[in-house]
């Protein structure tokens, strides 16, 4: 399909900068998840891309065609974008079919061009074609909204938190259906979300917008393992941060000497460990890879069923509280003495 190029994009509301010099390029056929906390500027970026809001500076090119620069603002309707708003926003006076063909020329509207194909694409049966939006569940509405956006074969599909209003079970299957439909059309797409699990599972790549700046852009695995800042580390997933000292690619911290994924300058650091990296061993076990093992006391447990979050107090450093995550059936008891080992490499952030 087509590529998107954004450079030097700036936008302020009432003198308050919301986007600072955002540069972003999306390769054809990629699904990019745009992740960030609320108020980070994601929605503003999306609205500027759509042409609902004007940028203060910067350029945007869609499919090699410039749509925004200093003295150009191509109106929304001429940008050939597919837009899936938060709640679907199906036209309530039109049936599912009429919604899907809405953006097509008149003759194709009459012919109900590709309606069956698009419905199948988003995982709905033909029975839905004649229903009214009010007769659909939230997830079905989202699917129709996607079909409507895809119908005119847009250059770029923009999805604005499309799953946030759905309940957990519905969210998962709607997510899968949407991902499958986007993959099938090979569309270039941007998915705006504040849900890290959604961004990691759906995005081919994830870009993080933090306080109006694009602070990291990486494949999901890299983003999770090597977040650019400690704040981002905590935002993407649970993080245990321990003080330590880095030397020659090794970090010394209360959990022992740990191998670093990425080199940092020698000196004081905060070591970031994901709770699921911390393994609990019974008193007799030894670590599989013979790495260092620390004694600890279980102080509290939150049992979630599939897994359990364990709070631990190290014998060697009583002031540091460690959080570990273990499979639910392996959950220890409060007051139990256990031994900790750290699985695989960690990342460290130098002291500021």
């Amino acid at each position, binding site marked *: 399909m087509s590529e998107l190029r954004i450079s030097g994009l700036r936008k302020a509301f009432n003198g308050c900068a919301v986007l600072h010099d955002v540069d972003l390029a999306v390769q054809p056929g990629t699904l990019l998840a745009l992740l960030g906390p609320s108020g980070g500027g994601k929605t503003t970026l999306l609205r500027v891309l*759509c042409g*609902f809001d004007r940028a203060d500076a910067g350029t945007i090119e869609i499919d090699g065609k410039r749509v925004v620069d200093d003295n150009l603002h191509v109106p*929304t309707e001429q940008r050939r974008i597919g*837009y899936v708003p938060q709640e679907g926003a199906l036209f309530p006076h039109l049936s599912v079919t009429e919604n899907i063909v809405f*953006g097509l020329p008149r003759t194709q509207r009459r012919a109900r061009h590709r309606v069956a194909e698009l419905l199948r694409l988003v*995982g709905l049966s033909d029975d839905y074609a004649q229903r009214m939006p009010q007769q659909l569940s939230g*997830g079905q*509405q989202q699917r129709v*909204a996607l079909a409507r956006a895809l119908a005119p074969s847009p250059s770029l599909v923009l999805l604005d938190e499309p799953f946030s209003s759905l309940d957990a079970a519905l969210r998962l*299957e709607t997510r899968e259906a949407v991902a499958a439909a986007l993959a099938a059309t090979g569309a270039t797409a941007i998915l705006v979300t504040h849900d890290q699990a959604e961004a990691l599972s759906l995005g081919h790549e994830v870009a993080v917008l933090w306080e109006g700046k694009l602070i990291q852009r990486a494949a999901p695995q890299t983003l999770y393992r090597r977040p650019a800042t400690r704040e981002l580390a905590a935002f993407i997933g649970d993080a245990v941060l321990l003080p330590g000292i880095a030397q020659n690619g090794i970090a010394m911290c209360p959990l022992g000497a740990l191998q670093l994924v990425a080199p940092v300058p020698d000196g004081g650091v905060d070591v970031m460990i994901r709770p699921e990296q911390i393994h609990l061993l019974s008193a007799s076990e030894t670590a599989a890879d013979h790495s260092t093992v620390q004694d600890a006391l279980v102080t509290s447990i939150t049992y979630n069923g599939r897994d359990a979050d364990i709070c631990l107090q190290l014998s060697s450093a009583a002031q540091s509280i460690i959080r570990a995550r273990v499979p639910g059936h392996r959950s220890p008891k409060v007051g139990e003495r256990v031994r900790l080992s750290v699985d695989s490499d960690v990342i460290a952030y130098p002291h500021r």
Partner: protein
Amino acid sequence: MSEVTDIGEAVAAIQVSADVRARDGKRAPRGLLAGAAVSALLVLLPLAFTFYRATTVGFSDAAELVFRPLVGELLGNTLLITVSATLASAVIGTAAAWFVERTDVPGRRLWAVASAAPLAMPAFVTSYAWVSISLDLQDFAGALLVITSSYFPLVYLPVAAALRGMDPALEESARALGCGRWATFARVVLPQLRPALLGGMLLVALGVLSEFGAFQMLRFRTFTTEIYAEYRTSFDNSGASLLACLLILLCLVCLAFEFRVRGSARYERVDRGARRAALRYELGGWRWLVLAGFAALGIVTLGVPLGMIGYWLTQEGVAAITPAEVSPELLFNATLSSVGFGLAAAMLTTLLVLPLAFLLARYPARLATVFERTVFLAQGVPGLVVALAIVSLAVHALRPLYQGMMLLIVAYAIVFMPLALVSVRAALMQAQPRLEDTARALGLNAMQTFVRVLLPLAAPGLGAAATMVFISVVTELNATLLLSPIDTHTLATQVWSDTSTLAFAAAAPYAALMTAISLCASGVLFVLLGRSALTARASESPLISK
């Protein structure tokens, strides 16, 4: 996947029907039913009496009375002015609403107020202002001008509210799908506006059908002016009743349409999303044209009427075509009786609808709906007809009450009950039953719950209802003219008697005072409606929303 949601829907449906059954099972207290029945019967009384009087005319006489050229002319005139004023109001009201809500036209706040304010000016005052400029306006064109400028806010207000309430994402989606601003308006916005627009248009049509004062002053003959003329020639006239029945028939047709529009497609937002402002179009060079249009609208609908009243205020009584003097004493007395009638009617009307509104909010059942529909019938009975029916009812059966203040207040209550009912019911609906349940669980008895929970929550809405009735009564002409006790003059009747003798300067102080009272009360109304909306939002819980 669809199985999962289908089961979910089925469960939800069962829960809903269980809910309804639980509610049906709760019987409404007898006293409440009786109270609600009183208001419904009161509304039926003038209607039934008018029909009864009409039937006393023999069949051949009736045919002779109905099928004469005069009735044809009246019907033609009435339909012509109703249809053209309704269409003109639709175009002007929708355009004004769209420009205020969807474009960057400068001074939007001002234009929003200016487009609603003409509602506070009764049409007979507006017509007085125009006629006092030139008597040449006494024809169809003048009538269309005056009626449209008085009634277009009835379209503007609901359409503007609908535009504000519309999910901005709908328009954004249409733009993203390649529609320009006109295509978006025609294919997405207009269909969404249909209920509000049609509802507003039918209100205009009902208003025009019932209008009397403006037509009389503009010498434009319609059913109402003819009914009044017949009443003047012999005041207990079954011919007038026959004409009134024809008029009621026209009104009921409008009312039936309105019911259908309101009942059918109500496009609510399919889902609740984050509230945000809708897109505004930049008008660019067109803004001056739009601005000029709003300025012209403001001058025609507000500037000229207010300006002319101001002009005649500064003139000596002798400057007008017919000289007449105004005494401060008469002015004071007229103001006092206008305000007094207004307050009394506001209180009585609100009290009368309270039992029915409570019944509808807490014990919705078939009987309650029947009562509600009956009260809404009053919208289809012009004030003039109600007043006439009460006059002849009093003459026939209630002689001692005739010419008394009581009858006038009751007539006001009958005419304005639908207005109050809508607002009072909405106010009571806002106070959700679960809040009362909570209060009861905290140890309050029914009466304490009513005083400490229901009343504070519903108070702004009740106040709004009473204020609406007050404004309507102060600017009411028909019933006041026919039923006010001899020697009692109100501001409205004074404007009427002075202007019908072309004593324009003498009418000015009364008109000015009446307009001022009405505008001030409208200000109060907006504050109350704002508060009422606030409590509505506060008691709206995410748990309730589906």
